[in-house]
């Protein structure tokens, strides 16, 4: 957590004071160093969630389900930030809050809505093996939705979004790319620290519940 905090401070200083301004968009383009790393970290955590979901279906270890759930939780929290920073960037760049022809933003919205339903499903099933299985199934289905949503939105929309990463490399100055990488590393570290913290909290809560049941004289599984 300390390392994540330190890197976030460094990243903020780099973005605010060191990195050169964009020729077309000026200072306001700096939201890119928040918006894109948060979006990539969000996708990364949804991928981690799907990985643990698949492992849970293979091994039936409840810890894998918990890891998957907490990773998706982090992914959705970051996703909310993407859907806040995206429209702000759209407003300052294009003068509108939302553009239905923008492929990245709309893909993200579809994936975000899918994962919101994941939480609805999780809380509609009693705690236990069935909830773990159903959550894992839906989490795994979700990772198939990412390329499909991207493909579909690509068909429907025109690309307004500034495309920064091409096959031949990033279309930006080295200093900008360095600041972007520092920011991305900071968000990955922060989300990983929060993932571990939330996981520890959930395990602690489960331990407390087990103790309460034991005090009440109920049978408790090890």
């Amino acid at each position, binding site marked *: 957590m300390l390392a994540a905090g330190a890197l976030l401070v460094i990243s903020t200083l780099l973005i605010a004071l060191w990195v050169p301004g964009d020729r077309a968009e000026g200072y306001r383009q700096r939201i890119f160093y928040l918006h894109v790393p948060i979006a990539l970290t969000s996708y990364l955590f949804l991928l981690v969630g799907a990985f643990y979901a698949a492992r849970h279906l293979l091994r039936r270890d409840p810890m894998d389900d918990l890891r998957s759930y907490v990773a998706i939780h982090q992914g959705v929290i970051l996703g909310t930030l993407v859907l806040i920073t995206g429209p702000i960037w759209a407003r300052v760049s294009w003068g509108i809050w939302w553009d239905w022809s923008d492929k990245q933003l709309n893909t993200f919205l579809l994936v975000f809505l899918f994962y*919101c339903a994941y939480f609805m499903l999780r809380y509609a099933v009693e705690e236990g093996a069935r909830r773990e299985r159903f959550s894992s*199934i839906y989490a795994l289905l979700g990772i*198939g*939705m990412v390329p499909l949503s991207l493909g579909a939105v690509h068909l429907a929309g025109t690309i307004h979004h500034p495309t920064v990463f091409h096959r031949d490399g990033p279309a930006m100055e080295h200093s900008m790319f360095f600041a972007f990488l520092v920011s991305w590393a900071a968000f990955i570290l922060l989300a990983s620290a929060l993932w571990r913290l939330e996981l520890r909290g959930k395990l602690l809560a489960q331990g407390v519940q087990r103790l309460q049941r034991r005090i009440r004289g109920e049978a408790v599984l090890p």
Partner: protein
Amino acid sequence: MTAHAVPFARAVRLLVRTDLTLERRAPQLALAMGLFAAVAQVVLHYGADISQPPVSVTVGSLWVTLLLATLLAVARVFNAERDEGLLDALVLAPIPRTAIWAAKAIAITALLLLMEVVAVPLSYLFLPADAPVPSFGVLLLALLAGDLGLAALGSLVAAVASAVRGREVMVPLLYLPAAVPLLIAALACSVHAAAGDSVMRPLALVLTYDAIVGLLAYAVCEHALTD
């Protein structure tokens, strides 16, 4: 791989026949979906309030109608088995559980095809006289490819939602976000066809959706049908 007393193909055939026989004897769901398709198209046309709607709106209303009508099938397709306790018997039966998912997907596809017999002519009826229309062959191809994806997803969502609290609420919440990419691709396919453009890209995406969702659903459906 577990050897089952009844092989996959035979189990699917038997289960599909059971579902279709039940529907033929009391065609409640097919009739409800057909009527829903008709009513939804009228509602969408008046809701849009366009006297001469562009083809994207008319074809769009057809696809939205199909998607919403599929919800009726998805919400009901496992009801008999869950309510009567038949699902436990099916799970215990010496058949592959994937056969249950496949049979339900085929039953949903059959219901969708039946509904489209009503919805597609109605959609053409609502088209303005001078509107460029998608050729019937391309539309049929898009519908068939779209139905497969909707049914593969629907069967999995139905298996999951039928075992949770408030399944009527959960079915649209789980189904619609996952079906939107297919809706966009299938709609693009129809609109491209009407404009005389190539439909290869959108059709390829619809088929990719069918393949990815079909494979994922096949791989995980056994876990949805464990109890």
